[in-house]
């Protein structure tokens, strides 16, 4: 049976981590006027939520949104996939070739509809079809377009004053809040470490990871937990002398100068500090060298400037790269200055653009791909001055890029993803409640940052409102929400690797010890009967299946029963931590069964959940937050100003899109259209 399309053009605006509960709080405060307009023009549940898939993990849920299949069915069950060789290691999973269910965009393109898949972090890259109707941009990591492949230089804070006597460069410094950016003793902070420092981006999404290398991360203690790591900003620090300008080809009277280092410290950009007509120093001009006639950019105090293109020197090869910059502080007498420069993105890096011409089109008509910021965390100064404005600028660039592409290429279906809220959530949502570990931070300040990110999102969504008047149907949705944690959790259910603490306490995972009894970072496979890896999975160390298996398959069933019983009995601060635990076969009720879901699936109970990814999709946290994802739809084919009481499951969204656009259901779809919100009776 062929169905009539209810709309000719459909845009999915995906906002990673957008939580309907806190959204409603902000709607009530009147700070999300654009979203309010979408709601009035469309349909949603009263609570704006839908029931997210499990695990509440980015690629798993975006893949469910794209296929209409549960994670157990499509096989993308966490950020990483269990390594086929080792129980304690994981491998890269944001590869569309791992997905075992058909993506809806394959269906739309096959039906002759021109489709754009923009930075969809779940089973979108490499392109899943060679149909020329399919255009794809990135999707290999959740952060921002090209983040994983185009980065040429890291974020920096440059401080200059008259007391600094020589130029100092300190790469990737950990700067907890309050340490500022003056380097008093370089050797004290750059002593050779026992282990080489690993960059999380490189480890997780780098070349080696993407080609299948094992990632072996043990969560041994709080210091290995993502919320602890991400709270502390890392950036390069440059300290420069500041003096009267000399040796320049042309320089105004009274100008002062200092030096910026880029390209991992090997490129120098001399910078003038300039006065305004009132004699106040209020701006800086960055030059390629002192002989250059024109500056690369002029920065005024407090204004973020984006789209700055300058050469980055990579092993002697110069590559034009795009940066954002902001002059954070400048004393009126010009004797002290502080500025931030973003990471640098190679403006010509087109390997994740299909077809490649799309990049050129965007660069020429909208501007080069903008970098975002990853410095913030517990440092409220940086979040306010740098992190939030940098993301705001990126959101505006993305909105312009999408609008440009939609208009020029006449797409009929667009799947898009934005990561601002989720990225911020990982950095500081947990600081919005005063947990003991971060007692020196201010929850109210961080609550206001959450507010700012939703205002930023509202502004982004507003850039697409005009499409409703042009016959488009728009869905606003998320993979999962983000909660503000009620407690600092025990180490179980952390998606970044193998969780040791609880499983060690319960006696299932045994780590080797040195002669002094100190725990080593090495599993004692001869004594380990089970491990907990990734977000929600426990694997029995099974003979005949696993490399170091010791558990007889005949004993597996009883061991699973014992583990589940112990998990339920486990207490942390006197409270039960585990919500549900079930065998793989039983987890079909949650859609988390099958070969990619371990032997036992478990959830962390409400109250001990982290931001997202460890509990049910319905858990709630402090500051009116929840892990539920948002869903609403508006425009052609959707009832106006309509509320439904129906439970909307994540698997129902792909079939709803298929119904609206008039194509067949994706092959492995397990959901059904949300009949209630459609204008046509079905």
């Amino acid at each position, binding site marked *: 049976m062929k169905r009539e399309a209810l709309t000719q053009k459909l845009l999915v605006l995906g906002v990673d981590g957008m939580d309907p509960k806190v959204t409603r709080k902000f709607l009530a405060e009147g700070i999300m006027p654009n979203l309010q307009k979408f709601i009035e023009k469309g349909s949603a549940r009263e609570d704006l939520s839908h029931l997210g898939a499990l695990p509440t993990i980015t690629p798993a849920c975006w893949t469910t949104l794209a296929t209409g299949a549960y994670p157990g069915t499509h096989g993308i069950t966490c950020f990483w996939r269990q390594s086929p060789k080792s129980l304690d290691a994981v491998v890269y999973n944001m590869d569309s070739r791992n997905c075992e269910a058909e993506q809806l965009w394959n269906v739309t393109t096959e039906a002759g509809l021109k489709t754009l898949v923009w930075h969809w972090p779940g089973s979108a890259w490499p392109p899943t079809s060679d149909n020329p109707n399919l255009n794809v941009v990135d999707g290999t990591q959740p952060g921002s377009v090209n983040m994983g492949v185009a980065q040429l230089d890291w974020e920096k804070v440059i401080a200059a004053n008259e007391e600094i006597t020589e130029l100092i*460069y300190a790469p990737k410094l950990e700067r907890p809040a309050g340490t500022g950016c003056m380097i008093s003793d370089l050797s004290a902070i750059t002593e050779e470490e026992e282990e080489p420092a690993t960059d999380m981006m490189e480890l997780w999404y780098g070349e080696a990871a993407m080609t299948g290398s094992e990632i072996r991360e043990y969560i041994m203690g709080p210091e290995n937990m993502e919320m602890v790591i991400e709270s502390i900003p890392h950036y390069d620090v440059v300290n420069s002398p500041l003096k009267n300008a000399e040796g320049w080809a042309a320089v105004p009277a009274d100008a002062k100068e200092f030096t910026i280092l880029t390209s991992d410290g*090997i*490129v*120098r950009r*001399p910078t003038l500090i300039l006065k305004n007509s009132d004699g106040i120093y209020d701006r800086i001009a960055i030059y390629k060298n002192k002989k250059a006639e024109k500056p690369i950019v002029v920065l005024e105090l407090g204004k973020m400037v984006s789209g700055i293109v300058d050469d980055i*020197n990579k092993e002697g090869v110069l590559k034009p790269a795009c940066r954002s910059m902001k002059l954070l502080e400048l004393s009126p007498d010009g004797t002290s200055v502080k500025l931030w420069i973003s990471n640098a993105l190679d403006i010509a890096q087109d390997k994740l653009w299909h077809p490649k011409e799309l990049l050129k089109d965007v660069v020429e008509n909208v501007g080069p791909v903008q970098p975002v910021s990853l410095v913030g965390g517990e440092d409220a100064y940086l979040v306010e001055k740098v992190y939030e404005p940098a993301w705001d600028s990126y959101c505006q660039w993305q909105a312009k890029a999408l609008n440009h592409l939609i208009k020029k290429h006449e797409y009929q279906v667009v799947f898009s993803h934005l990561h601002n809220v989720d990225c911020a959530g990982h950095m500081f949502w947990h600081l919005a409640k005063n947990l003991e570990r971060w007692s020196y931070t201010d929850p109210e300040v961080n609550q206001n940052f959450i507010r700012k990110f939703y205002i930023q999102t509202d502004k982004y969504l507003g850039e697409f409102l005009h499409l409703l008047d042009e016959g488009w149907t728009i869905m606003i949705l998320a993979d999962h929400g983000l909660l503000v944690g009620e407690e600092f959790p025990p180490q179980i259910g952390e998606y970044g690797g193998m969780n040791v603490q609880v499983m060690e306490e319960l006696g299932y995972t045994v780590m080797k010890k040195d002669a002094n009894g100190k725990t080593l970072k090495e599993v004692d496979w001869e004594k380990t009967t089970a491990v907990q890896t990734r977000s929600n999975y426990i694997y029995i160390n099974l003979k005949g299946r696993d490399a170091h298996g010791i558990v007889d398959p005949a004993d597996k069933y009883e061991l699973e029963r014992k583990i589940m019983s112990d998990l339920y009995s486990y207490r942390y601060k006197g409270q039960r931590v585990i919500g549900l635990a079930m065998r793989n076969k039983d987890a079909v009720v949650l859609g988390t069964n099958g070969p990619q879901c371990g032997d036992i699936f478990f959830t962390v109970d409400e109250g001990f959940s982290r931001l997202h990814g460890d509990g049910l999709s319905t858990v709630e946290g402090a500051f009116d937050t929840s892990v539920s994802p948002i869903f609403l739809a508006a425009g052609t084919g959707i009832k106006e100003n309509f509320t439904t009481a129906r439970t909307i499951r994540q698997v129902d969204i792909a079939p709803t899109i298929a119904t609206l656009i008039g194509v067949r259901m994706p092959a492995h779809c397990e959901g059904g259209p949300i009949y209630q919100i459609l204008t046509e009776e079905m």
Partner: protein
Amino acid sequence: MSLEQLNANSFEKIIYDNAESCLVIFSRKSCHVCKEVVPVLEELQLQYRDRVGFYYVDVEEDKNLSQRFSLKGVPQILFFKDGEYQAKLAGAVDEDKVIDKIAEVLES
């Protein structure tokens, strides 16, 4: 003729402000390999007089500079042209290697 030693401030002036075509060897007094490479450069600099500058940085005296270039060991010879870093040679290198590198990056 021994190589002219640079410190953090003279480095800025010569490499960047004057934008000389030059090479800089980062070395350490106690390094055996450096003791073999430095004389090679001392010999060579005569051939390149007025065309290529030859300089020396002691990484113990100027830790900031080696830190800045993320140098993990010595000796390392860094090549600069027009105020831009061009390339480097690490470890034990002979005269021919240095001559080839100069031709490749500084005289091309």
